[in-house]
């Protein structure tokens, strides 16, 4: 067996296990008219939020609301009881309120990262080009980026991924309404069994 076979097989296994992506294949776009804007995140409003973690299922209502200081994300159960209230600025997040029992670093970070992915405003992104079309990449921290996939039409967001330079960690699949605006999202982790589904609620006309 050639001496590179084992390392090569190990690399393939690693890539399969950790969802190596084609991020490295993304190149700077020649045209830079595409910019990150509000069409690349879920609009404010009420959403039914369903969380599946391992074998547990929790549901409730998520309210995204734009305020002068940022985007608020408030999660309550259907009977109105509030679990948490976060505020997202451009590339920042803070906890306004969280149930003491939920106030663990991992829980807070996971929810803030996942909800922030689809609802938080972002600073300007690099515009890249790949096989699927235009990808807007914004830096989260030293290790992670957000990749907004828009295809040929800059305003047609299809999914958002969070990952490093090569490794995909979380994928949010976005559904758009008849006007092309995002209205539902399903966020799935690649490294462990955790999924969040957000479905926009039709609000009654007054």
């Amino acid at each position, binding site marked *: 067996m050639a001496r590179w076979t084992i390392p090569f097989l190990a690399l393939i296994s690693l890539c399969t296990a950790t969802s190596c992506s084609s991020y490295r294949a993304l190149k700077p776009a020649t045209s830079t008219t595409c910019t990150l804007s509000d069409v690349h995140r879920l609009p404010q409003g009420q959403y039914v939020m369903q969380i599946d973690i391992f074998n547990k299922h929790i*549901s409730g209502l998520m309210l995204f609301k734009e305020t002068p200081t940022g985007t608020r994300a408030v999660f309550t159960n259907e009977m*109105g009881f509030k679990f948490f209230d976060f505020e997202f600025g451009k590339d920042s997040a803070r906890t306004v309120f969280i149930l003491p029992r939920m106030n663990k670093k991992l829980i807070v970070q996971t929810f803030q990262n996942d909800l922030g992915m689809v609802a938080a405003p972002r600073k300007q992104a690099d515009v890249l080009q790949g096989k699927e079309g235009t990808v807007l990449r914004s830096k989260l921290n030293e290790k992670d980026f957000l990749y907004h996939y828009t295809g040929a039409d800059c305003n047609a967001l299809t999914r958002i991924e969070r990952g490093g330079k090569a490794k995909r960690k979380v994928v949010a699949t976005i559904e758009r309404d008849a006007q092309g605006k995002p209205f539902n999202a399903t966020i799935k982790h690649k490294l462990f069994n955790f999924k969040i589904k957000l479905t926009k*609620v039709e609000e009654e006309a007054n």
Partner: protein
Amino acid sequence: MKNTAFLFLLTILAYTTQAQRAGFTYIKDDAAVRQKLSAGSKAINAIKADFTQEKELSMLSEKITSKGAFFFKKENKVRLEYKTPFKYLMVINGSKVLIKDDSKSTKYDTHNNKIFKQVNDLIVSSVQGTILNSPDFKVKIYESSGQYLLEMVPVAKGLKEFFSGINILIDKKDYSVSRLEMVELSGDKTIISFSNKELNGKVDDTLFSTN
């Protein structure tokens, strides 16, 4: 000097007024009222009603409204069916609880979950009007011409973590609950108002199936 005294008096009056419930009078010797409420609630065997739930988010000046149907049958059967703007069902049948949202049904047994049991007992006893007997709350009773107001402060460990108070409005004419107000520690309020109430009508047992 006179002005200062006057302002001081006004402040005291304002404080005293706020300490009362607007439109309600505190009943200090409430033994007779407790007996009346207990007897009144014993006469209710079944309830069918519409409900409107309003969640007030104190920090956002936002109100989230949902509506549905409510059923109760003695002894411990409750069905809370949310219809708009989302579909959600909660059924309590004794110690069994069924929760059903758009995608999944989950069953619980309150014997295995202390907090769930407390919430379960709270809902059932609030609806039945037997909450006055609960050791989990300190209760003050107020009355107006048409209603009693039960102001309940949780003393039980589990409930204290979630609620700062629960207020129940009871109609004097039939001793049924017309409104339930839950105040969380964060200052948020959830108000459930019941309308189109039918008391002691036919309520099918199948509505409370947890299978």
